[in-house]
């Protein structure tokens, strides 16, 4: 007897592929936002699967805050080249020239100028009407109620109180000119699903996710990588070598490392099954103010 049942990962994959194809079919000019992180890696693989044996009919866009880890940029270049992706890299030129950065301006200003504003600039510049993001509902409280097709007005704003109902797998793709949709094909995946899928599918990820001896500085309880000369020298002087890895990868130095021995994908999955702290504890930006993610999202951040 044939088996007609799908595993959890199989079902999540089928759902994500359906969503990705739906956007490609209903929108004129979609783009996939690519952060180089693990979720982006999974999302890019799902897109490759969705259009196989054809080429993915939309580009990847990386919003470069100019404060990404070096290893991430190297990974981005080699990965997109190997897979034949169209890659757009966009950054906020004005912010960059003003020297906006987390050390000098604080995490709030940096995120606002170099991430949120840069993203809006990029979306406007290419007139994208749909943008895929790798956000998951289990990441953060305000995400739990976000739609898979999340409507944005012409100023890219999200109105949590005025979201379109989303039933079955029928997605309302109607937008007026200038309005757009953010699409989250991996909404229903958990952090553990992501890791299991990376293992199952053998998806390449940035080496920073694997544990290694690295120089780190303890800043307010966060282990910040100290291999970058943009970090003030007096801070860097306090660095010590530790076996660490990254659980999430945001902006350097807004993302903290965790102490870990997990240097293989199996060990990472195992660690994820037993870890007692949530994913976003290593993201410094979240601690700014309560409901800070919701605030950022209203303003147009992912």
């Amino acid at each position, binding site marked *: 007897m044939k088996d007609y049942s799908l595993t959890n990962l199989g079902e999540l994959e089928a759902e994500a592929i*359906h969503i990705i194809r739906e956007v490609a079919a209903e929108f004129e000019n979609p783009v996939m936002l690519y952060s180089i992180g693990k979720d982006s890696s999974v999302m890019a693989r799902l897109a490759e699967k969705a259009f196989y044996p054809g080429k993915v009919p939309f580009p990847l866009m990386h919003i470069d805050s100019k404060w990404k880890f070096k290893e991430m940029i190297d990974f981005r270049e080699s990965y997109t080249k190997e897979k034949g992706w169209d890659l757009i890299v966009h950054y906020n030129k004005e912010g960059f020239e003003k020297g906006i950065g987390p050390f000098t301006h604080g995490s709030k200003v940096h995120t606002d100028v170099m991430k949120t504003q840069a993203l809006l600039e990029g979306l406007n510049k290419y007139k994208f009407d749909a943008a895929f993001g790798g956000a998951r509902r289990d990441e953060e409280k305000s995400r739990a109620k976000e739609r898979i097709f999340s409507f944005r007005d012409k100023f890219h704003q999200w109105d*949590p109180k005025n979201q379109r109902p989303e039933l079955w797998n029928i997605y309302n793709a109607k937008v007026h000119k200038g309005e757009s949709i953010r699409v989250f094909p991996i909404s229903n995946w958990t952090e553990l699903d992501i890791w299991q899928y990376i293992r199952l599918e053998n998806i390449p990820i940035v080496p920073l996710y694997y544990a290694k001896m690295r120089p780190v500085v303890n800043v307010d309880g966060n282990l910040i990588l100290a291999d970058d000369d943009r970090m003030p020298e007096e801070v860097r002087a306090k660095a010590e070598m530790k076996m660490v890895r990254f659980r999430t990868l945001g902006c350097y130095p807004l993302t903290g490392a965790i102490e870990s021995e997990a240097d293989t994908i199996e060990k990472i999955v195992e660690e994820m099954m037993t870890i007692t702290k949530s994913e976003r504890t290593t993201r410094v930006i979240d601690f700014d103010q309560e409901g800070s993610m*919701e605030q950022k999202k209203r303003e147009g951040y992912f």
Partner: protein
Amino acid sequence: MDIKSFLDQDQKKDLLRLLTAGSVDDGKSTLIGRLLFDSKKLYEDQLSTLERDSKRVGHAGEEIDYALLLDGLKAEREQGITIDVAYRYFSTAKRKFIIADTPGHEQYTRNMVTGASTANLAIILVNAQTGIITQTKRHTFLVSLLGIKHIVLAVNKMDLVDYSQEVFDNICEDYMSFVTQLDIPDLTCIPMSALKGDNVVEPSVNMPWYHGQGMLEFLETVHIGSDRNFRDLRYPVQYVLRPDREFRGFASRIASGIIKKGDEIIVLPSMKTSKVKSIVTYDGEKDYAFPPQSTTITLEDEIDISRGDMIVHTDNRPRIERHFEAMLVWMDETPMDLSTHFFIKHTTNNAKARIDKVQYKVDVNTLQKLEVGHFELNEIGRVVITTTKPLFFDPYTKNRQTGAFILIDPVTHNTSAVGMIIDQLSSKDLPSRITNMDKEKIARGEALISRDERVAKYNQEGETIWITGIHGSGKNELAFTLEKKLFDNGATAVLLDGSSVRLGLNRELDYSPTDQAEHLRRVAHVCRLLNDQGIIAVCSFISPDESIRRQVAEIIGKDRFHLIHMDASTEYCHKNNAEFYEKAKNGEIENIPGFDLPYDVPEDAVFKFNPEENGSNAEIILEYLAKKKIYPVK
């Protein structure tokens, strides 16, 4: 077990999507909080944030207020109510779970319906102290309306009724007698105390009289594999892949049924047949695919297929219709307006739709049917819908994927309503607003003579032969010949053509597109009246517009409308009506279809005729009428 085989095992887990319904008083948040907490899905930092928030803004006194964990958005937290659907995730060694957490208040029916649309199972919470209340019934009705097959009635707060078996049994009995009027194949009752932990994760020591499963154990073991429809193949084409000249792949998320290599298939609406050549995936070719997989197939033959088409097995087809009845839930702040032309999205198909009639509204608290003219936010009821093109559907109770649709407001683009198709509607019962008014007028005369009596008297069915074609194509020649032959053979027929109708009935109308539409609408109604009284109508009208021809067919009744196309060459027409076209060329007359206005060549004509064979063409129609038993019936 080594780590690799452990992980291999772990990723074979399946997925259960469930809905929780109930209010704060029923302890819903506590139940979810405990499931998350006991399955280690609550992290330390979330727990400490929760403890901090509980003291600051919580509504649970000194206890941890789990609702704070679940209510995501700031506005909700301040008001202390959940205003939307929130999704929670947890997994155990056996399964992964997605919880759609929805609030219980009546005004949030739309959220509950949203959460239920993707769920396999619903937990309905009741407070053991209050038992089954109106809200419980409302939730159960909505859950059954959305086609959820498994319901768990969680009788919570058993600690507050001394863990009494009698209380539990009474509540279950009450509930059972209520649900008999609904369609719920699998129902389980569990006595519980979410706060104290009885029968949530651990079996209760306080209720030795209960021998069933605890909540988590039940959720881990309930069999959902056979809930899917594996019988009826419905393959809605979502995307066409053409990476190179050779490869044409049709991508779809299989709605239902199994598709296998070699299967004989038919494509809707083109009705072209072929065989499945291959099933292509990134992970290699497959011999078969099943729902809800997203896959790509290729076919043996080159057939024109686009998004919105549906591939099905030749011997198992869905309904193909433009009119159907549905249960509709109104989701928009703006009330229903019967004059709106909505966008409808159904599987991968987009069309326009209008609500023809509201049959009744269901009072979600009493399940009574009420007569209303329209729906407001959160109201539910039965309606008749007409779409601009046929949809390929099944009744929702048979197929959740092909029975569901959404209506989108053409101006605001909000999702105004969501619907579940009950079934198609025969055109006899079509309550189109125009025909309705007429029905009432005609009804007085018709009541005295039955349709059968008329058929017996005339030995014919009252139907319409509608001949379309541009000026000079030979419509009138054919119509007049046909009328004469019908008359000679003993049939009762009436001929209608443009000039005779415009002489009297429609004399104030000109040739502008608006007046043209009105002209044909009136003619259609005349045909309808004649047909209703058993008379055959032979019509000769240019009727260049496809949408207007459809409207005509709708007024007359699709199954008694027979379209004939006079397909003459332009040269023939110009020669046949030289004087007319000369004036047109000089600009003395305008608005001429096929000249300065478009003429939509019909694709659904019964016959396409060459005008140079008018004599035999009329014979062909007579044969057709005989074969169809329109005339003679006996």
